[in-house]
């Protein structure tokens, strides 16, 4: 049975309304204040450290994002940790909030498809995150220029923008997860808790679980050196189920032109290589392309699952 009319009727309206709601909500203000303060702190620390140590580094600008001074984490590590929180805060009551306010049935009685509601909610959240990220990024660049007195090179900008795009996809994964929970779970508090537990497991405990599971699947045989490599590869595979691992690998490659691989490197592979020579931007991108694709795929899969559940859901309160 084919339906008539475009499923995208009203997507823009819903997305803009959602974005406007987020922009004015106290929840968003609080969490952005937290992000902003920590960001300023980590950049300040990084600038201080860059001045002290790596004054002759050719990619000084990218170091702004990755260099950390104890006890503060680097800006990139810090986004990897806090962005999921922002995304969950924006998405955890997307659908069940409408349901509890009893606005869902009225909304669905408007001349739009259900698709538009879900899609609009997702786009609205992503739009807000994109605006926040861009602002943060520009702020970092500005602070860097001000304090280091050094304009970024074109290559630095390209890498920085590519990294920004991947960061958005990473946030999108968490937003899709939060909206998925908001569709399946009827109570906003439960859905927020569920999303936060997944976040906690994947960002904090996953790095402990991965070696444990890898050790069980591929135990190390003391007489077979390859078994160590085998085990490491298993561990890496399991660790990559966490979007944070993927994001960390992309960050490492994109923001450090000297990095060459995300996996183990053997001595013979390094023969003839000029250690410390930077890779072209496209080569760095190629190395982490699978990670980037995985992030986007995770986002799409979560969104599709939500979509299927939402289409079949009863709207009556």
């Amino acid at each position, binding site marked *: *049975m*084919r*339906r*008539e*009319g475009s499923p995208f*009727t*009203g997507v823009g*309206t*819903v997305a803009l*309304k959602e974005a406007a*709601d987020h922009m*004015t909500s106290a929840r968003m203000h609080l969490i952005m204040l937290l992000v902003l303060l920590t960001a300023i702190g980590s950049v300040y620390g990084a600038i201080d450290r860059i001045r002290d140590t790596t004054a002759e580094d050719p990619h000084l600008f990218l170091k702004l994002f990755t260099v950390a001074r104890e006890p503060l984490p680097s800006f990139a590590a810090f986004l990897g940790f806090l962005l999921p929180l922002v995304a969950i805060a924006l998405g955890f009551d997307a659908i069940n909030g409408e349901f509890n*306010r*009893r*606005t869902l*049935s*009225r*909304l*669905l*009685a*408007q*001349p*739009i*498809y259900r698709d538009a509601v879900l899609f609009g909610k997702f786009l609205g959240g992503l739009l807000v995150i994109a605006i926040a990220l861009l602002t943060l990024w520009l702020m970092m660049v500005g602070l860097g220029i001000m304090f280091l007195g050094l304009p970024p090179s074109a290559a630095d900008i390209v890498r920085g923008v590519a990294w920004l795009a991947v960061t958005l996809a990473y946030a999108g994964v968490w937003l899709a997860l939060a909206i998925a929970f908001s569709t399946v779970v009827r109570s906003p508090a439960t859905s927020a808790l569920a999303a936060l537990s997944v976040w906690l497991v994947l960002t904090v405990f996953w790095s402990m679980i991965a070696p444990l599971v890898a050790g069980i699947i591929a135990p190390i045989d003391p007489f077979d050196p390859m078994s160590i490599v085998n085990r490491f590869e298993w561990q890496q595979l399991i660790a990559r189920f966490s979007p944070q691992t993927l994001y960390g690998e992309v960050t490492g490659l994109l923001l450090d032109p000297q990095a060459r691989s995300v996996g183990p490197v053997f001595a013979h592979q390094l023969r003839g290589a000029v250690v410390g020579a930077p890779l072209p931007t496209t080569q760095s991108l190629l190395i982490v392309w699978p990670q980037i694709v995985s992030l986007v795929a995770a986002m799409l899969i979560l969104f599709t699952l939500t979509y299927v559940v939402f289409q079949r859901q*009863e*709207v*009556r*309160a």
Partner: protein
Amino acid sequence: MSAVVLEAKGLAKRYGDAVAVAGIDLSVHEREVIGLLGPNGAGKTTTILMLLGLTEATEGSVTILGKDPLRQPLAVKREVGYLPDAVGFYDQMTGRENLAYTARLAGMSRELAKERIAAALARVRLTEAADKPVATYSRGMRQRLGIAELLMRDCKVAILDEPTSGLDPQSTQELLELILELSQGGMTILLSSHMLDVVQSICSRVALFNKGRIGFFGTVEELAERIGRGSFLIDVEADGIDLAQILQGENGITSVVDSGPGIWQVEAVSDVRPTLARRIVEAGGNLKNMNLRRARLDEAYNRYFREFANAA
């Protein structure tokens, strides 16, 4: 007869083994006000959702304004307005902003929307509260805002689910007057309720729902004919007898209810006052008063549903 705007044939909805709606037929003409009546859980809301295409029917078909709500949902929803049970609005937004949002969703231009919203708010007397957040609105005001939304969208058909539930008598009356105005303005209206006496004044026809079926569909007068007549209520006041005992086995008497010392309410299929008087006197009682009245429609209606419940 005017054109048929809504037609349902053999509409049924099952959730696993549970039957919510067990095959109903409904045909609504232009400018009619139809009351869907029945106790909670009788299948009214499910029927409404199926009519709108918000829930897929297990069996049967619906045609609204010549369109199928499952195949052409956008075209149907553009012309059919729905006011859900206990309608919700975005609390932080003002009444006007809430309407502006639905106007944008309907694809209305900004100028047209502004004009129509102002007119609609004026008609439901919400102009003064229009720029306050909906969080400050009373229940009656929210319902009126819901009506304003239907007015603004200029729907041809409006489906209202329990529009008067939870309202005080004055707000109920105001809302019913508004609905009557909508109908006079050319809108076809379906409204559900579990209170017959509330909506009987504005409905041109009513459908009685019970256990997922329509037990009766017709005008209020026909309903009175069917379930109200044939039942005579006689209040009897007498001393020194037990009326229930005396009348045992008497033909034509349905029930005798003791409603106080020396007062009974007798229900019968015909006017049995002469028989009653003779019986009481023969038994040596003092007959003080006897008063015949016809059953009120809402009494008959309530009895109708009680009988259904007992029969099941």
